[in-house]
């Protein structure tokens, strides 16, 4: 047997189905699309609040807990009317919620174990009831096992209407209570101090979570529903820390995953919908983790790279200052910074590879901080602007050394390493703050070297006078 037999998806028949789907010819399929997208949006929005309240996997336990309720409702009322199943699931889910909270409060059992107990016990009960039902002769029992992994294609119009209605209700409720939910999520103690009726809001939140879990069961299934609540917000976090933006992004991610999985479900009705939705969500999560601007991995690596280059440039500027300082200077005058040095001079003073040094010098040249030289081997010189910066860097370095020895009680011989790093971070404001905080306004650093005066300040002073 050929292993590639599985890749039947790429056959021409599927392309045709794809086009059919998007031309909205099939009304039922369009309803499935609408329902799935609404589900994706509502579940991810409400799941965001669960995540922020540090209850990420609650959705998992609640989804599993809903199963016996559906089965019992079916057995009792002998119907698979969506409303009956819905309420059966809700009731059962709440029982699960109760068990999950009761156990840690009244026994030694810890919250994580309580969740796992609830999840597995209710699921086992549901499976037991399911196998019992399958032995009976009742109509309509065939749809029930689709609730394990979800099967959007198997949903009836009435299921979809109910789902859409509930999803929209959830979203509206979130909008109404948004301000309160936000405060509770971020600052619980403050909310309590303000006299919020915590029981009321917790109950509303619980109802919303349970409801969104229950309506998702037919599409995503019991086992994977947790992912639809959890993954979108986890991915959204990489895009923004602002709650509204996060919720919006999570909603979009949830909606898109719903869209794609509804599409796939139409094209391959034998495949369960739930896993596809989760796979899409996971892919979106990984993409967010890697590529989100600001917080994504690649963005951070890029920032670090830029910082690395800046650090190298500033290091060389300071080395040039130090080399200038060491050169024999005319007496009783300001330090002259226009001496020339060779590559070797620099490399003796600071351990840096030849290649790296040449690249850094090139960049400094482009920025106009060293005097323009074609193929520098010798005669490397600071430009006027380069001198300004070199002086400022040296000021920062030596002031910080003073700060460390005076205020932080660190020995003089240990401060150089720290100052080497901090000099790149100090702002103008902070530099002035250091000068003010230092006890004696010394003009020398802990090694006895002179702290220069900033040329920028001198220029300002000479403008004023």
């Amino acid at each position, binding site marked *: 047997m050929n292993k590639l037999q599985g890749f039947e998806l790429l056959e021409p028949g599927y392309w045709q189905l794809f086009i059919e789907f998007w031309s909205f010819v099939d009304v039922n399929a369009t309803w499935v699309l609408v329902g799935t997208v609404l589900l994706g949006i509502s579940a991810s929005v409400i799941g965001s609040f669960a995540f922020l309240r540090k209850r990420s996997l609650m959705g998992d336990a609640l989804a599993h807990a809903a199963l016996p309720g559906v089965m019992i409702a079916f057995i009792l009322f002998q119907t698979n009317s969506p409303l009956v199943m819905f309420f059966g699931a809700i009731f059962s889910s709440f029982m699960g919620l109760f068990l999950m909270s009761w156990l840690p409060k009244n026994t*030694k059992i810890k919250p994580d174990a309580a969740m796992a107990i609830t999840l597995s016990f209710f699921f086992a009960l549901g499976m037991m009831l399911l196998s019992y039902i399958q032995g009976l002769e009742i109509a309509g029992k065939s749809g029930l096992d689709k609730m394990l992994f979800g099967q959007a294609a198997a949903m009836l119009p009435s299921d979809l209407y109910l789902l859409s209605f509930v999803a929209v209700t959830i979203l509206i409720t979130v909008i109404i209570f948004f301000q309160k939910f936000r405060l509770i999520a971020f600052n619980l103690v403050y909310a309590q101090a303000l006299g919020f009726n915590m029981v009321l809001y917790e109950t509303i939140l619980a109802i919303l979570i349970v409801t969104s879990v229950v309506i998702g069961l037919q599409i995503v299934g019991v086992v994977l529903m947790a992912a639809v609540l959890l993954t979108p917000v986890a991915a959204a976090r990489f895009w923004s820390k602002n709650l509204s933006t996060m919720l919006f992004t999570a909603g979009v991610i949830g909606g898109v995953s719903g869209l794609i999985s509804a599409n796939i479900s139409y094209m391959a009705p034998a495949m369960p919908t739930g896993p596809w939705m989760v796979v899409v969500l996971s892919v979106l999560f990984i993409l967010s983790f890697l590529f989100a601007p600001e917080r994504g991995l690649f963005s951070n690596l890029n920032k670090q790279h830029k*910082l690395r280059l800046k650090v190298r440039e500033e290091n060389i500027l300071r080395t040039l200052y130090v080399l200038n300082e060491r050169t024999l200077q005319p007496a009783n005058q300001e330090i002259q910074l226009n001496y020339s040095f060779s590559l070797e001079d620099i490399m003796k003073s600071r351990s840096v590879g030849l290649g790296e040094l040449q690249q850094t010098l090139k960049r400094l040249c482009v920025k106009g901080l060293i005097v323009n030289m074609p193929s520098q081997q010798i005669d490397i010189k600071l430009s006027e602007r380069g001198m300004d910066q070199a002086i400022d860097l040296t000021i920062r370095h030596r002031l910080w050394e003073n700060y460390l020895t005076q205020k*932080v009680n*660190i020995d003089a011989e*240990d401060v150089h390493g720290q100052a080497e790093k901090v000099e790149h971070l100090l702002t103008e404001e902070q530099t002035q703050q250091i000068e003010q905080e230092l006890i004696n306004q010394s003009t020398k650093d802990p090694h006895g070297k002179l702290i220069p005066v900033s040329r920028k300040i001198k220029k300002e002073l000479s403008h004023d006078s």
Partner: protein
Amino acid sequence: MKNSPLVVKHINMRYQHNPVLTDVSFSIPEAKTIAIVGPNGSGKSTLLKGIMGLEPLMSGAAVFFGDSLDKKRLAVAYVPQREESDWDFPINVMDVVLMGRHGQLKFWQRPTSTDKKIAEQALEQVSMLNFKARQINELSGGQQQRVFLARALAQQASLYLMDEPFAGVDVTTEKAIINLFAELKAKNKTIVCVHHDLNTVGEYFDWVILINARLIAVGSAEEVLTVENLNKTYGGRLSLLNDLTERLYRTNLDKVHDE
């Protein structure tokens, strides 16, 4: 200081991006009781954990009796904070104390009768021998602390590092702990405690180390507990130091720079 039980060199520690300790260095004398003191969040417990290798050090090292911790494990006993343990664990007092002997055993070895005797002696020293078959969740706070001390004693170490042993214990236990310290000192053992109570520090301890995200002072209690030093310790953080070190970590500059 020759043969100092513990020398700490330039320890830097952080929690995510926040600097917790900057460049802490000191060495301690033998056969004394030493307190590490500072306000909440000053890094006292973290320092102890860093020294014991429970938390990662950004840089720096701790040297025990002139050697690394791995080579001197048998000489060092660590007593964690009480609240960090699971007191619902199904275990009795004797078994907890016997854990102190596990450090000397390979993983397949069982405690011998000698080990059991040592454990019982330790329990005797803290007046808990009668409780040896009790479940630990039946004990009071003070009793739990004494069991932890017995476990440390069972290790028969030369240096004892304890994280807030006096927190939340009753007066009897407090007195018992002080007596224990005196006994240990007489046998040339050294004791280092993270201590939270400024009022009792001078009374209970010979030496004091003042910490507030950095070392403020180290020395004998009389020398160190001056108004100036206490102001520096309890007068809030050095904001510049804090802000800049945090930026250092957040931008990963420390890693970038050392390349």
